């Protein structure tokens, strides 16, 4: 079964320590939830955490700040989620009442064990934005990436031609610039998520890979084959 994103949703809040959104469709138990965060803050480092209303545990996969701080990007995930009914995910910033744009995405076709498969990040200044390079260990990974910038003005954010845009906030007058893109990657060659923004800004980006589920092997069948071929050796 191929891994894929079945739903995603975005939200923004400023001046609050936390905000949460409810996904539009119920989440399937066992799937993976990824939370991608863009933040503008007034402190040199940030301390984010994520939680949901089903007591799943969210692990920080990767984070990045611009060189001088103030703009931050993070990716959290929870695998094999336990859920029934609606699903609400919250983002908490314990460092300050910051401005946060975030996207929540549900991945399906992924294993119920920890399915993360590498990550990377990058930061810079200019109109060419990237996540840093990532090399998956297997084919069929979901590569999901997020970029952040902020200027108080609207900028055009163009996603990578090899990726599909999931969500974005371009209006910096009302939200922190935020773009999330995804790619189902049938290769183990290095890959980088790119964006092009309409103005030269400080930016940071992150990427994370999540493995697809692999059909379970059939050891009982294998053992029966062994018994049929070599059983006579053990019969005595």
């Amino acid at each position, binding site marked *: 079964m191929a891994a894929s994103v079945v739903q*995603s*949703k*975005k*939200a*923004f*809040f*400023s*001046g*609050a*320590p*936390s*905000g*949460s*959104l*409810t996904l*539009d469709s119920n989440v399937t138990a066992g799937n993976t939830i990824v939370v991608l965060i863009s933040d*503008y803050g*007034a402190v040199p480092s940030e301390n984010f955490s994520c939680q949901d209303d089903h007591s799943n545990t969210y692990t920080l996969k990767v984070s990045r700040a611009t060189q001088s701080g103030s703009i931050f990007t993070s990716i959290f995930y929870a695998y094999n989620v336990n859920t029934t009914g*609606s699903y*609400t995910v*919250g983002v908490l910033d314990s460092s*300050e*009442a*910051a*401005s946060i744009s975030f996207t929540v995405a549900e991945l399906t076709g992924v294993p119920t064990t920890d399915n993360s498969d590498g990550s990377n990040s990058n930061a810079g200044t200019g109109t060419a934005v990237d996540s840093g390079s990532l090399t998956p260990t297997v084919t069929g990974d979901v590569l999901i990436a997020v970029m952040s910038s*902020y*200027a*108080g003005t609207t900028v055009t954010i163009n996603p990578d031609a090899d990726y599909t845009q999931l*969500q974005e*906030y*371009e209006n910096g007058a*009302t*939200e922190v610039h935020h773009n999330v893109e995804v790619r189902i990657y049938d290769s183990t060659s290095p890959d980088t998520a790119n964006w092009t923004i309409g103005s030269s800004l400080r930016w940071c980006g992150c990427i994370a890979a999540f493995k697809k589920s692999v059909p379970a092997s059939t050891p009982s069948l294998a053992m029966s084959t062994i018994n049929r071929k070599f059983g006579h050796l053990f019969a005595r």
Partner: protein
Amino acid sequence: MAFAQWLPRSNRSQGNYTTQNFTIPSGIDTVRLQLDIAPNVFSSPTLFVLLTIEISSDNGQTWKPQFTVNWKGGTEPQGPGGPIGWRASVGGIGQYAGMLARVRFDSTGGFRWGILGEIVAG
């Protein structure tokens, strides 16, 4: 298409308040909200506001929360150009075109406030 409306400022005490319902037009995907309060109450430790954007798919019989943010008294958040106030938005409501939406507030502490709602494309 954009919609903007300031709800009346009022000096409300602890309690809850729900805005009037509005219909989500087709072609929009984001609801933006800005809470407008007097500057001198930003730092009030007694100020706490829980805001929830709700959508009804059955003409107001039942309401489903889409986004919740809890604002509390503290330093006004700063953007590159200065204070940016308290704002919130939620995207992905384009699928609810034609349905009703409203904003619910639960608050502690009396303070003067208003709310600006805007629904925008993209």
